[in-house]
C-alpha cells in the first residue's frame, strides 16, 4: 500500500457515505433489469470498437522471431543461445542421472560411463537428509525415492529430477540477483512489480506458445517456462527480506568498512538467509508443480507419463506417475525446509577429509555404487522383476466404483449442475460489462482510493474490450462458486481446529503435504469419478483451494491477542459471543487474506481444468496452445491475470482497511 493510497483513504469522507454502496448496487441491478433493451452496447461490447489485441500480439511475436534484432544479432539468435546455454547443465545432469555419458550418436553410441546407479542416488538423498536434519529426514527421503524405484518410475523420475536440478539453481540465483537489484534501485523495484504480478497471475498455458516459438520444442524450453513460473516469488522474497534486515546490521556493515559488494554478499544476504531459504523452497515446489505442464512443450519424464496416461484415459498409469511426482515433491520439500533451519556446526579441526565428512561419504557412495554396478546388473538398473505395479488395481477400483456407484455420482452431479451451476452461470453471463466495470471501479475507489478505482475499472474494461467478457464471466462463475464452497468448508474446519493444539498440528501436516502436490494430481481422481465438465472442474478446484481457507482462518484465530479473549470472558461473554464478536471479528483481516489466497488458488487450478472441458478463459488459453496461436493465448491469459489482480487488490485493500479500523497494527 503506497503512502498516496493511504492518504487518499484517510481523506475520504467514509463515515457519511454509507449509503453509496447500496446505491451502487441498486443501479447495477436496475441496469440488469431494464437496460438490455435500452442500452444493448452495455451488454454486448460493440464489435467495431474492439481492441484487436490478439492480432497485435500475434504480429509482435512474429516480428520478434523473424525480424527483431540488436545490431547484427537477431532476437531469435539470442533466445536460441540462451536455450543452448541452459542445455549444457541439463545434458550433464541427464547424463549423470539417466542416460549415462555417451560417445557418438544414436544407436552407435557407446556408453563411456553409466548413470549413477539407483541405490547410490537413494543413499545420496539419505545422506543429504542426514546432513540437514538427522536420521528421520534421511529415512523419509530414502523412502520416497525407493518408492519411485519400486513402482517402476525410476527412469522417468531421473529425467524429471535432472530438469529440476537445472531449473532450481537458475531460478534461485536469477531471483536472488533480480531481488538484490530491485532492493538497491527503487526505480527497478517499481518497474518490476507489475511484471512480477503478471508473471505470477498469468496462466502458464498462455506463455507456453511464445516460449515454444522462441526457444523451440524440448526440455530447455520447458526449463525456461518453469523459470518464468518459479522465479517471481524468489525475487519478491529477496527484496522483502533484504528490506527487513535490521538497520543496525546495515550500520554494522558500513562501520566495519564494507564495500558495496561486501555489504551485499557478506552482510545483507547472510543476515536474510532464513527468509531466503523459504524462497528456495518455493522455487523447488513451484518447479515441481510445473513438471506436468512443462511436459507439453517437451520436458519428458514423469510429467510426460502423466499427460500421456491422461490422454489414453489410463488412470492407473497416470496415478502411478502422479504418485512418483508426489513422492519427489515430499522428499525435496522436507529436505529444503530442513536445510532452511539447519543448525550450523563448526567443522571438526584436522585434515581435509575430517573437515568434510559428508563430501567423503558422498564420494564413497558413488564409487561403491559404480563398482558394485559393474558386477551386479541389479545395481545398475532396478530389476523389472522387483517392480510392483498398482496400475491394474487402480483401474479395477475405478471401474468397480463406476460400475456400482455410477448412478449416484451422476445423480449428485446433475443435481448440483441443475440447481446451482447452471443458474449462476446464466446470471453471470447475463451481466452487462459496462455495469460491472463501473461497479468495480466504484468498489476500488471506496476501499482503496481513486487510484485503485482507476485500476480495477481499467482492467475490467480491457477484458471486455478485447472480447473476452463472456468467457471471463464463466471463469468468474466457476471460480466464485468453488471459492464460496471452499470457504464454507475451510472456515468452519479452521474454527474447529484453531483452539486445539494437537489437532491443529495434525491438520497442519496434512495441509502442508496437500500443498506440495502438483495441481494436476487433484484432477485425476475427480475425472475418474465424474468424467469431464464443469462439475468435475469445480470439485478439483475446491479440493485444491480449500487449503488456504483453512490455514488463514487458523492463523487469524490463533493470532488474536489472548488478553482480549480473557477480557471477554471476564465480561461474561458466552463462548458463542466470544467466537463471533471477539475472535472472528479480530481475525477478519486474516480471513480476508485467506479468501484472497483461496481465489488465487482457485484461478490457477481453473486454468488447468480446461483439460476436462470447461468453456472459460482457461479453455481459450488451452485451445490457443493446441493451435499454437500466441496472440489468442496471451490475450485470454491476460484476462485471467486481470481478474486475479482485480480481486487481489480489492481484497488486500479491504483487509488493510479492516485492520486499520480494528486498530491492529499493519505490518
Amino acid at each position, binding site marked *: 500500500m503506497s503512502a498516496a493510497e493511504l492518504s487518499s483513504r484517510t481523506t475520504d469522507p467514509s463515515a457519511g457515505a454509507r449509503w453509496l454502496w447500496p446505491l451502487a448496487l441498486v443501479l447495477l441491478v436496475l441496469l440488469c433489469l431494464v437496460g438490455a433493451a435500452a442500452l444493448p452496447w452495455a451488454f454486448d461490447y460493440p464489435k467495431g470498437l474492439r481492441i484487436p489485441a490478439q492480432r497485435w500480439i500475434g504480429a509482435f511475436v512474429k516480428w520478434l522471431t523473424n525480424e527483431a534484432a540488436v545490431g547484427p544479432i537477431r532476437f531469435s539468435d539470442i533466445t536460441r543461445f540462451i536455450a543452448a546455454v541452459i542445455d549444457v547443465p541439463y545434458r550433464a545432469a541427464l547424463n549423470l542421472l539417466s542416460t549415462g555419458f555417451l560417445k557418438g550418436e544414436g544407436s552407435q553410441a557407446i556408453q563411456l560411463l553409466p548413470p549413477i546407479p539407483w541405490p547410490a542416488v537413494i543413499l545420496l538423498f539419505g545422506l543429504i537428509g542426514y546432513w540437514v536434519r538427522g536420521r528421520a529426514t534421511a529415512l523419509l527421503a530414502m523412502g520416497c525415492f525407493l518408492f519411485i524405484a519400486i513402482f517402476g518410475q525410476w527412469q522417468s523420475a531421473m529425467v524429471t529430477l535432472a530438469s529440476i536440478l537445472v531449473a532450481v539453481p537458475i531460478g534461485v540465483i536469477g531471483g536472488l540477483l533480480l531481488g538484490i537489484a530491485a532492493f538497491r534501485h527503487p526505480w527497478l523495484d517499481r518497474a518490476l512489480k507489475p511484471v512480477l504480478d503478471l508473471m505470477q497471475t498469468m496462466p502458464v498455458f498462455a506463455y507456453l506458445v511464445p516460449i515454444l516459438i522462441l526457444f523451440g520444442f524440448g526440455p530447455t524450453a520447458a526449463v525456461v517456462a518453469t523459470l518464468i513460473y518459479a522465479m517471481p516469488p524468489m525475487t519478491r522474497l529477496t527484496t522483502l527480506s533484504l528490506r527487513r534486515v*535490521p538497520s*543496525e*546490521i546495515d*550500520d*554494522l556493515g*558500513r*562501520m*566495519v*568498512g*564494507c*564495500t558495496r559488494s*561486501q555489504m551485499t554478499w*557478506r*552482510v545483507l544476504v*547472510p*543476515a536474510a*538467509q*532464513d527468509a531466503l531459504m523459504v524462497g528456495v523452497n518455493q522455487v523447488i515446489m513451484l518447479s515441481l508443480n510445473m513438471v506436468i505442464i512443462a511436459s507439453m512443450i517437451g520436458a519428458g519424464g514423469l510429467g510426460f507419463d502423466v499427460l500421456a496416461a491422461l490422454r489414453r484415459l489410463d488412470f492407473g498409469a497416470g496415478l502411478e506417475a502422479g504418485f512418483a511426482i508426489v513422492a519427489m515433491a515430499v522428499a525435496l520439500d522436507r529436505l529444503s525446509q530442513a536445510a532452511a533451519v539447519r*543448525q*550450523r556446526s*563448526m567443522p571438526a579441526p584436522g585434515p581435509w577429509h575430517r573437515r568434510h565428512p559428508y563430501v567423503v561419504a558422498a564420494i564413497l557412495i558413488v564409487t561403491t555404487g559404480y563398482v558394485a554396478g559393474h558386477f551386479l546388473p541389479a545395481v545398475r538398473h532396478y530389476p523389472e522383476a522387483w517392480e510392483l505395479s498398482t496400475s491394474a488395481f487402480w483401474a479395477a477400483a475405478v471401474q468397480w466404483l463406476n460400475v456400482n456407484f455410477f448412478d449416484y455420482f451422476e445423480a449428485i452431479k446433475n443435481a448440483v449442475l441443475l440447481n446451482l451451476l447452471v443458474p449462476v452461470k446464466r446470471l453471470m453471463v447475463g451481466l452487462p460489462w459496462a455495469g460491472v466495470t463501473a461497479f468495480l471501479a466504484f468498489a476500488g475507489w471506496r476501499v482503496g482510493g481513486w487510484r485503485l478505482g482507476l485500476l480495477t475499472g481499467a482492467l475490467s474494461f480491457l477484458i471486455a474490450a478485447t472480447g473476452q467478457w463472456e468467457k471471463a464471466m464463466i471463469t468468474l462463475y466457476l471460480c466464485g462458486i468453488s471459492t464460496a464452497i471452499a470457504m464454507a468448508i475451510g472456515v468452519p474446519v479452521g474454527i474447529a481446529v484453531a483452539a486445539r493444539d494437537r489437532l491443529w498440528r495434525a491438520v497442519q501436516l496434512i495441509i502442508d503435504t496437500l500443498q506440495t502436490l502438483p495441481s494436476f494430481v487433484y484432477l485425476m481422481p475427480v475425472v475418474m469419478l465424474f468424467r469431464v465438465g464443469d462439475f468435475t472442474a469445480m470439485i478439483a478446484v475446491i479440493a485444491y483451494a480449500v487449503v488456504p481457507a483453512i490455514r488463514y482462518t487458523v492463523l487469524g484465530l490463533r493470532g488474536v491477542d489472548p488478553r482480549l479473549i480473557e477480557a471477554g470472558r471476564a465480561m461474561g461473554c458466552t463462548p458463542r459471543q466470544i467466537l463471533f464478536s471477539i475472535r472472528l471479528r479480530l481475525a477478519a483481516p486474516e480471513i480476508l487474506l485467506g479468501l484472497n489466497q483461496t481465489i488465487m488458488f482457485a484461478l490457477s487450478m481453473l486454468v488447468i481444468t480446461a483439460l476436462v472441458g470447461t468453456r472459460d478463459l482457461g479453455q481459450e488459453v488451452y485451445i490457443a496452445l493446441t493451435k499454437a496461436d500466441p496472440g489468442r493465448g496471451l490475450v485470454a491469459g491476460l484476462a485471467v491475470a486481470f481478474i486475479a489482480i482485480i480481486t487481489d487488490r480489492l481484497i488486500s485493500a479491504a483487509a488493510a482497511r479492516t485492520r486499520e479500523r480494528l486498530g491492529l497494527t499493519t505490518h
Partner: protein
Amino acid sequence: MTAPATLICRNVWKLFGADAERRLAALGPAPSLEALQGAGLIPAVRDATIEVRAGEIFVIMGLSGSGKSTLVRCLSRLIEPTAGEILFNGRNLLTASEAEMIEIRRHKMGMVFQHFALLPHQTVLENVAFPLAVQGVDRARREARAREMIALVGLTGRESALPRQLSGGQQQRVGIARSLAVEPELWFLDEPFSALDPLIRRELQGEFMRLQSVLKKSIVFITHDFDEAIRLADRIAIMKDGAIVQCGTPEEIVMNPATDYVREFTRAVPKAKAVRVRTVMQPGVPADRNAPSVAATATVAEASAAFLDGAAEIAVLGADGTAVGRLRREDVVQLLLGGSEG
C-alpha cells in the same frame, strides 16, 4: 592537563525532510526549533558542537528521540549531516571520499550497537573476526586476533557458539570484542547496555571501565540513563530536542546545572556519586600518618567507605601515588546529607 582533541564536531545540523540543505540555508544562521518545524523539517540535530579528547569517555545523554543516535551517526558519517564540520585528527570527514571513509572506518573506528547487531549465522569467533575478514586479513591472523579479543571480554570457551545460544549480556560482550578487533582509535557505543537487565548492565559497566583503563580509547558513549552517564563519563553532553543544552564533567553538571531541564536529571542523583574527591579536599596532609588513603579521582561516595573505621581525615593521593591533600569527614558528611537536593 587537557589532551588533544581526537574528534571535533562544529555546528553540526541534521534535518530530515526533502531538500533540507537548501531550506536550512534559507532560514538564516540559527533558526529556532519552531521555525524549522514550521518549514516541515524534522530537526534531529541542531547546531551541535562537541570535542572528544584523546583517551576520554565522552557521554552523550538525552531522552528518547533527543537526537543522540542521529548525532553519533553523523560523527561516523553513516548519515550525511545537513551542515557543519567534523574533524577527525584534524581531517574533515565531510570532504573525505567514500574510499577514504571506508579506510578510516576499517582502521580507526569501532562501534557497539544497542541490539548487538551480531550476524545470526556466524559463530562468536567469526563475528569477532568479521571486521578483519572484510579487510582481507588471512584466516589464521584474524582468528588469532579474534581469540585475543574474546579472551579480553571473558568469553573464552564460547568461540563456536552461535549468537542465539548466548544471553544478552554475553552477546553484547561479543559486540564489544568485535568492535575492538581492529584496534580502533575512536570507539562509538550507542546505548550499548540499554537492552540489558539492571544487574547485567552494572556488570558490563564495570567491565567497560576495566577495559578502558587498559585500552585508553577515545570514546563516544550514548545513553539515556543519567546514572550511567555519571558513572562512566569523563565529560557529558546533555541533549534535548536535537540541541546540546550543557556540556561538562559530571561534577560540573551536578553542581551547576545550566537549565531546569538538566536540574531535573541531577535531582535524583546523589551528589556524592558525581563529585570527585579532588574537588572537596583540603590542602595539606592528614594529622594521622596511618590514615587510610584514596585517589583524587575517586568519587566522594567511593571515598566515604574509608571513614568507616572512624578516621576523621584521610589522605588523598595523586596519579603518581604521592599525597596531594586530605579529605575531612565533615565535608563528606555534608555532601552526603546535602544529598540529592539540588
